[in-house]
């Protein structure tokens, strides 16, 4: 990979942050009439995506987008409207629509915007100055090189169905009549590759990726090695046997597991009786090895942020400590409803979404043994290693805790990975899984998403196969 040192690209004055967005948000917030609270969220982004296939560019997308989301509170009633444009004519229309929507909501004393709470934001540098000046041709070259590398990595790779490069830069400003004034900006880059390994009639697939804050540092070797290793080791997989087993979850899979658990830690879900953690504060909800923390101030985290989606400082929140449930995540409204305050945990899905509590950077405290993946496998001895899961959206509920997913991976024999298996399911309940945590790896990897990846071992799960 070549890195570029060509500075001074199109983003002049980028070091100052999205000042023009802040000014725009302030201007719209100032249109609030008396007796009305207004919160304005503005975002603007640039993105490039390149997909390489069979030695050529399959597609190249370049785009700029911008939009606004406005919340209005009148008499404790909330209304929201958004638009995918920052055109002057759109701003007024959007505010008017949010106002009109507020008329129809139920008055609720807990409905309010965040008020500055004195917690100072921890600065996190999420902006790669160099990204804006990387020529598109370099991005195209990287995608083509990734595709070519994956094709020749192993004689059993018979297809590379997608090799992608993508980057984005996003700037956000948030201003409210309740005193919030925050802005942030963030760049990100990724490469990902999907391969098909074949031997005889059988085919197996896997993907690999590398992520970063920009173009530099994206690692095609890592992406390729990961994809190829995972696809090739599944060749010859058969439907595994049914029975009770200890299951070791690969780091990537563990990220997904933690993300599901995090929905049950939302203070809103708890208050509305939609969490299996509701009413269990202070109770032992997991094994002693389970300590779960959300810390977006850790700059290594993919979801690191200085401010939450309501403009409060992000902070470190201990959710479960040595198996004891210690807290939930709150935004302003959920905090008020619970008789406490926001934990700085508001998240939202861009300008078209409204805030709600959620995690950004979950990690488990590594177990005392300091295991990596091999260490966990050796400690487990016999069991199933799950490389990928399917049907998480259709088979895992953060409300009931019921857990049933499709899986593929490898059997663990004598503490090592053995023969591959596919077309099996792994089932338990999330409650039981937390209590049956056998090992937490120290092999923390900050993967895309809201949780870190660490190898996890969970005892007493039901495997369904033959």
């Amino acid at each position, binding site marked *: 990979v070549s890195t570029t040192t060509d500075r001074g690209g199109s983003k002049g004055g980028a070091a100052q942050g999205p000042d023009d967005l802040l000014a725009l948000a302030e201007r719209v917030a100032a249109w609030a009439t008396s007796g009305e609270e207004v919160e304005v969220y503005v975002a603007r982004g640039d993105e490039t995506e390149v997909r390489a296939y069979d030695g050529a560019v399959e597609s190249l*997308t370049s785009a700029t987008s911008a939009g606004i989301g406005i919340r209005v509170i009148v008499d404790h009633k909330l209304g929201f409207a958004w638009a995918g444009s920052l055109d002057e004519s759109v701003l007024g229309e959007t505010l008017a629509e949010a106002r009109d929507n507020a008329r129809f909501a139920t008055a609720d004393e807990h409905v309010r915007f965040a008020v500055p709470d004195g917690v100072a934001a921890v600065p996190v540098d999420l902006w790669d100055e160099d990204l804006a000046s990387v020529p598109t041709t370099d991005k195209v070259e990287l995608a083509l090189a990734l595709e070519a590398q994956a094709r020749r990595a192993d004689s059993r790779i018979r297809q590379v*169905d997608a090799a992608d490069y993508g980057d984005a830069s996003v700037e956000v400003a948030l201003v409210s009549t309740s005193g919030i004034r925050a802005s942030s900006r963030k760049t990100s880059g990724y490469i990902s590759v999907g391969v098909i390994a074949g031997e005889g009639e059988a085919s197996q*697939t896997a993907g690999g990726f590398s992520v970063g804050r920009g173009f530099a540092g994206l690692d095609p070797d890592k992406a390729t090695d990961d994809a190829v290793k995972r696809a090739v080791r599944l060749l010859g997989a058969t439907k595994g046997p049914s029975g009770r087993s200890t299951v070791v979850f690969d780091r990537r899979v563990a990220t997904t597991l933690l993300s599901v658990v995090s929905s049950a830690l939302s203070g809103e879900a708890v208050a509305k009786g939609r969490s299996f953690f509701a009413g269990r504060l202070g109770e032992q909800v997991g094994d002693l090895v389970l300590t779960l923390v959300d810390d977006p101030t850790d700059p290594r985290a993919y979801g690191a942020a200085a401010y939450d989606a309501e403009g409060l400082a992000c902070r470190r929140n201990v959710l479960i400590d040595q198996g004891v449930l210690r807290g939930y995540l709150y935004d302003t409204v959920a905090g008020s409803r619970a008789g406490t305050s926001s934990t700085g945990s508001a998240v939202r899905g861009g300008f078209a979404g409204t805030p709600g509590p959620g995690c950004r950077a979950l990690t488990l405290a590594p177990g005392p043994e300091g295991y990596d993946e091999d260490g966990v496998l050796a400690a487990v001895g016999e069991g199933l290693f799950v490389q990928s899961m399917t049907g998480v959206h259709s088979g895992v509920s953060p409300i009931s805790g019921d857990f049933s997913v499709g899986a593929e991976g490898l059997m663990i024999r004598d503490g090592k990975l053995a023969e591959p298996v*596919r077309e099996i399911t792994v089932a338990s309940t999330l409650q039981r899984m937390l209590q049956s945590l056998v090992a937490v790896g120290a092999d923390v990897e900050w993967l895309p998403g809201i949780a870190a990846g660490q190898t996890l071992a969970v005892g007493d799960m039901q495997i369904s196969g033959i």
Partner: protein
Amino acid sequence: VEEEAAVIDSPVLERVLAEALRHGGDFAEVFAEDRSTSSALLDDGRVEELSSGRERGAGIRVVSGETTGFAHTADLTEEGLLRAAEAASAVAKSGGGRTTTVAAGPTLTETTGPRGSERGSVLLGSKGDTLDLLRRADEAARASGDSISQVQAGCGASRRHVLIANSEGLLARDEQARTRFSVSCVAVGDTGLQTGFESAARTLGFELFDEVSVEELAQLAASRAISKLLARPAPSGELPVVLAGGSGGILFHEACGHGLEADHIVKDASVYTGMVGQQVASPLVTLVDDGTVGSEWGTFAVDDEGRPAQRNVLIDQGVLTDYLWDFLRARKEGRTSSGNGRRQTYQHLPMVRMTNTFLLPGEDDPDEIVAQTPRGVYVAKLGGGQVNTTTGDFVFGTTEAYLIEGGKITEPLRDANLIGNGPEILKRVDAVATDFAMTPGTCGKDGQSVPVGCGQATLRVTGVTIGGTAE
């Protein structure tokens, strides 16, 4: 302003297409969209949020050989469109493509789909009327049983005007109105919390509620949650499975629908590659994808490439007859698109997608199918699924299921995923009934979501692996 996307003048479109091909390339397209959405949510007994959104813009693509350049813009003025055309043409300019044939600027001729002009005006519900429906659903759900502890009712409506023009002279427009109503309930009991969900969604405006009773939706959602409080863990292992008519269509969506999408086929990334003309399923299986059916959730007049929706028979009495095609993949094979080129918004490139995918009904009696199943699982409602098209392995999750013992539906089961392999499962369909029904769903692929319909009549699969916890 409402119809802005539909009124870009033809001369402007022609100039933009010519600009898009100025540096070379052999195909260019403008896709303009003007979309308004509104949603209302009643949760925890309160109207928590009314939301309105508006998005309009255009996506322009330039195809040069095997390479596509794409750019999108929210600026629908001629200047904005020309800038996007220039950006999209960068691929052709840089020689990233394999061919550079310069096409002349097109002359556009409007085409309409079979339903193109028959659309009347769409009935819009007022905010007050919408909230009234939500309150009625909330009350009906709560009245269904004392164990109902939480109800969330939501109503979302969208109107989407699209205009597609391309360098082959195509000009097409469509107006798509969609309305969706959903209810989710939580029931609480000694065994903890359980959930129930039901929704109705059609390619209609507020007329949806002439056909759908929100009280019935709410009662169904509530009864699902309540019955699962007494549910036992689902079995673990392989058993015969009877799928009730409607949501069982998800099985075919996953087991073969995705695998028949030509983008997977042309990359040899589907287990169904090269199998046209072969017996891939039980003779009882005739599978159709049809974007023209009534007001189903996956219905439209023209697809997002301007091609009229059509009915495509994919599997005829077990024999694979064809795949699903969009413009690019069809062009590669020297044939025409099957009307399956869809995209989430103007900010996305189109790809091959299903519309309404369903199994034609058979001749069996649904009750008889259950009566002739000594032991198995009866799935009354599926929630969703996922497939790996290359291996054919897929999962689908139950949200209402029962044990079948001695030919009778007995105890309720907790939710679980079922897992199978597409080509194997399709051959195991041994009974299909007459009670056909459709179910709406949202299909996700490569980061894009589109509305789809699924359907089938009650049917039996002789063996599927059930991922429960009961040994």
